[in-house]
């Protein structure tokens, strides 16, 4: 039997180590934030945010206007595609997924949904390249939005299911008791009651896809110009960062840090939105 003093020492040692883990994990995060702010902030200007990029290698790196525009277009299109599909799947899983007929079917759909969240985004990129880009014959913002939707749909479906399940059954029963039809109950009573969860899901999915890079490589390709139509390549913030980082010119590398600052501001503000939405729900 080991002595009490040794056990006490070991206790304190390991508890201190677990605090150490937190501190070690904080180092990269702080370093990333500090670097992005220190190197990115000097870049920010109206010109940087609105103009097109300069000729590669020239002394004027220009701006990241097209990349910001592209990212916003992608977010908009992706929401248009993924929100209806994701929310409807979530409604099915939560509202109809538990009765004896639909239960087994819903269980399988849930498994597929979870499996889809585990598919690497680059693999989704290949799929959309084969299905959309090769069919259309050119790179297209639509292809990018489809690829991002494939990533967003399972996230939206799952958060929708979870937030609908949090709505108490008494609310549904009250509505049904008034003679309201089932579907009307879902649309007009349950969904509004779960709106904060739905908003959270939408914001989380948006934050996830805004920073997604890999599938964009083979769907929208990137480029130097503002949006030129659905048959042309388009730029996006993550692609701009990736391409600029490897250029052997310091002004373009600085542009990458500036773009990273803009991207991280977008993603973090979406996450703060999630916090605001969920803390409101808890406070209710």
């Amino acid at each position, binding site marked *: 039997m080991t002595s009490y003093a040794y056990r006490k020492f*070991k206790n304190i040692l390991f508890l201190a180590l677990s605090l150490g883990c937190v501190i070690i994990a904080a180092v990269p995060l702080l*370093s990333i934030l500090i670097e992005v702010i220190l190197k990115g902030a000097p870049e920010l200007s109206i010109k940087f945010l609105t103009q097109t990029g300069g000729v590669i290698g020239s002394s004027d790196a220009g701006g990241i206007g097209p990349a910001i525009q592209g990212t916003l277009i992608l977010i908009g299109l992706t929401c248009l595609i993924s929100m209806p599909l994701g929310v409807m799947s979530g409604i099915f899983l939560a509202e109809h997924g538990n009765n004896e007929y639909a239960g087994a079917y819903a269980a399988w759909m849930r498994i597929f949904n979870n499996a889809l969240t585990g598919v690497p985004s680059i*693999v989704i990129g290949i799929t959309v390249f084969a299905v959309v880009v090769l069919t259309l014959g050119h790179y297209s913002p639509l292809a990018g939005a489809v690829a991002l939707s494939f990533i967003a749909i399972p996230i939206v479906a799952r958060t929708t299911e979870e937030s609908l399940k949090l709505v108490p059954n008494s609310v549904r029963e009250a509505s049904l008791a008034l003679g309201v*039809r089932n579907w009307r109950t879902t649309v007009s009573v349950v969904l509004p009651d779960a709106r904060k969860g739905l908003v959270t899901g939408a914001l989380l999915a948006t934050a996830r896809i805004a920073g997604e890079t*890999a599938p964009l490589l083979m769907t929208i390709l990137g480029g130097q110009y503002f949006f030129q139509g659905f048959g042309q390549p388009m730029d996006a913030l993550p692609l701009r960062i990736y391409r600029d980082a490897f250029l052997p010119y310091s002004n373009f590398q600085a542009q990458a840090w500036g773009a990273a600052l803009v991207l991280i501001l977008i993603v973090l503000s979406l996450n703060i939105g999630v916090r605001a939405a969920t803390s409101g729900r808890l406070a209710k």
Partner: protein
Amino acid sequence: MSPRLSGDNLFKTLTALLAVSAAFILMITAYELFVGSLPVLQKFGIYFFTGTKWNPVQTIVNPEIYGALPYLLGTLVTSAIALLIGVPLSLGIAIFLVEMAPRTLRVPVSYLVDMLAAVPSVIYGLWGYFVLRFWLLDYVEIPLSRYLGWIPIFGGTPQGLDVLNGGVILAIMIIPTVSSISREVIQAVPNSIREGAYSIGATKWEVIRNWVLSYGRSGIFGAVILGLGRAVGETMAVTMVIGNTIGPSAIPNSLFKPSQTMASLIANNFLEATPGTLELSAYIGVGLFLLLLSLSINVIAQVMVTRVLKVKGGAVE
């Protein structure tokens, strides 16, 4: 009640149809990757899995050939490094959050983990390429290769963009996944277990080590496997820091050598292949590997985690 065309039935059918979307996307993905990789699988057969040569340009002396083994190894080795470093850190964070942290610290620490999850992968890559690379080079790689360079895994000339950097970046990126799920698992351990252990005189660490962790081990294992799934599929950050070599030189036999993972191979080279060529088929074939690997990892993990957390009735990540 006889089935009829009512609003209820319509709505239910509509949602049931749209609920297939995830399954449908998965099917399309599997189908496209399988069909797309058929040419390379037919031509090279088992060599595609076991070979190391990769040459897309046919010349008289060098025939066109595709063997994906180095990239499979690259993925496995970087993911293993990620688990070695990331899992103890994540468990420490989870233990700190559930068992130790005072209420005032709990919220900021869970913010920290959430923010690690929120940072886009391309920004991890940017940081790894411009910052972490020089930290590793100056404080880890140069000392290690000077004193322990005779050990094969520390061989080669350190330059910062290599297997080690890829593994460390992945370790940071799996922390949110592993720590948040193990946190849920640890929280799901009934308090009566802890109380029983304290009552026979165990210290806090002994309670955690011998009761809490062993009660939740299956769920924690599931969390680790989910972290592995995240590491295997991660693309951009690794692509930016791993050095990107092709062919036999990409075999990750030293921490300080540039290498290549399956995902980074595709990200780097996919656009250079012309549609319809064997080269494109080879990249799609690597994608098929990656899909199968990550799907099986995820299914195993989901099963393990849900089995543990079902008791609590909560839905998991």
